[in-house]
């Protein structure tokens, strides 16, 4: 039975009426889940939908319920996200865990490997990008769906919980000794940040490339919430401004390939109502490069274990790992006054 047939059988069962699935097509990118777009004809209406299914091997090991609940937490609350429609953690007719959400058409996402991906709309998109992040960081999570599945750390535990987790990933998956990231981890532990000023929903992978824009200067969807959790909101800001996501404009100080770093931080502070303490943000920036290395080291192991068949895992475990090694080494040198 094809995937389209399986999907049709599933939707017919849960909607309790005949469904026809059309134009099922896998979308590239996003190695943590298989992503497909399709149309479902039901009751004389056509629904544009997205299927996110767990792959046999993955870039990151994430809980699809968290991602599903993150979408539910922000749908209709000032953050452009698709509506989460159905979740099957046991896989049901599709054999592997999956969820289905609404499709936002007419948008484009940038690849991190492209130069000037936003053209004349970079400034407008950058302002919205950091404004939306401010909205996420400024939202009190009390009572939102994600709190049903994401444990809330105490403000002074946020940094340690994240660092413990990603160091654990590196310990488990490292296949070649990595002295640069190890030095960074030791430094992060020696000089922890101030406690989080508030515990908030952290997207976990908020960066250029994980949003859709309409090519006219409008952000229309924030996607890829698979690493969402509760924690220090500076974590998201630090990841969003990491040089890896700067589209070759890091040396110009333009974060995300969109806007000036200081302006991005000011927008985030204004829209979140929070402060980006420079020392704390510097900690979270270094941490995020360590987290990146955790993801890439894990990807390299998955690439090998999966028989070298997913080139996204291959290039993530190789090119991006080396980029983050450079970023971490330079940052350590800057912190020591060597650069």
């Amino acid at each position, binding site marked *: 039975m094809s995937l389209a047939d399986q999907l049709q059988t599933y939707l017919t069962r849960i909607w309790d009426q005949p469904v026809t699935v059309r134009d099922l097509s896998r979308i590239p990118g996003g190695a943590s889940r298989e992503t497909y777009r399709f149309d479902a004809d039901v009751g004389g209406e056509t629904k544009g939908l997205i299927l996110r299914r767990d792959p046999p091997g993955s870039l990151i090991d994430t809980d699809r319920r968290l991602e599903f609940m993150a979408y539910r937490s922000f749908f209709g609350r000032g953050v452009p996200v698709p509506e989460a429609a159905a979740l099957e953690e046991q896989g049901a007719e599709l054999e592997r865990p999956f969820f289905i959400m609404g499709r936002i058409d007419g948008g484009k996402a940038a690849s991190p490997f*492209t130069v000037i991906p936003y053209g004349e709309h970079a400034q407008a998109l950058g302002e919205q990008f950091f404004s939306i992040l401010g909205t996420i960081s400024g939202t009190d999570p009390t009572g939102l769906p994600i709190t049903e599945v994401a444990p809330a750390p105490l403000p002074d535990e946020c940094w340690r919980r994240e660092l413990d987790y990603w160091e654990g990933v590196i310990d488990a998956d490292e296949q070649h000794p990595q002295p640069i990231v190890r030095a960074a981890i030791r430094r992060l532990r020696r000089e922890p940040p101030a406690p989080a000023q508030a515990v908030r929903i952290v997207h976990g992978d908020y960066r250029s490339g994980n949003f859709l824009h309409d090519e006219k200067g409008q952000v229309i969807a924030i996607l890829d919430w698979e690493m969402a959790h509760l924690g220090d909101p500076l974590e998201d800001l630090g990841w969003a401004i990491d040089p890896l996501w700067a589209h070759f404009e890091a040396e110009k100080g333009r974060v995300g390939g969109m806007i000036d770093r200081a302006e991005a931080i000011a927008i985030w502070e204004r829209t979140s109502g929070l402060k980006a303490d420079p020392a704390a943000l510097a900690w979270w920036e270094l941490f995020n490069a360590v987290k990146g290395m955790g993801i890439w080291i894990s990807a390299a192991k998955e690439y090998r274990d999966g028989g*070298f068949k997913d080139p996204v895992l291959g290039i993530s475990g*190789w090119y991006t790992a080396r980029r983050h090694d450079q970023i971490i080494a330079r940052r350590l040198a800057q912190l020591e006054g060597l650069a």
Partner: protein
Amino acid sequence: MTPTVPDLLLGNFLCLIDPPPPEAMGEFMVGRVAVTGMISLLAAQEAERGIDARLWENSAIRAVLSRSAIDYGERFREASRKHDENFNLSALDAANAKLRRELITLHEMAENKGDTKLYKEIIALYVKMAEARRLDLPPLPGS
């Protein structure tokens, strides 16, 4: 560092040799071919520079270990004694793994001892190591 160039080029073959299911024939396959092309492009750089980078890094780590043996123990002189004789990638990587483990230990010892000079010397080495292994991705057009 993993994966190696042989892994990646083998992977490029393996990921394209199986016929994809119908739903993965269009946009997904275009994206997959683009990534395999990018891997090939970067593999060309690694083929040109990878051996030199490893030889340089191994030699640089041995030099630090050797200089530090007086203050930090004979194990570091011992670890620095060998030279690279087999220049294939896997032999150089195996030697590099041993040297990097010793370097991690030495750096940690320098930190614990408050030996700022050696600590910073190793940080400066990390910058050069990361630079020597860099892969230069040419900027690709946005659309």
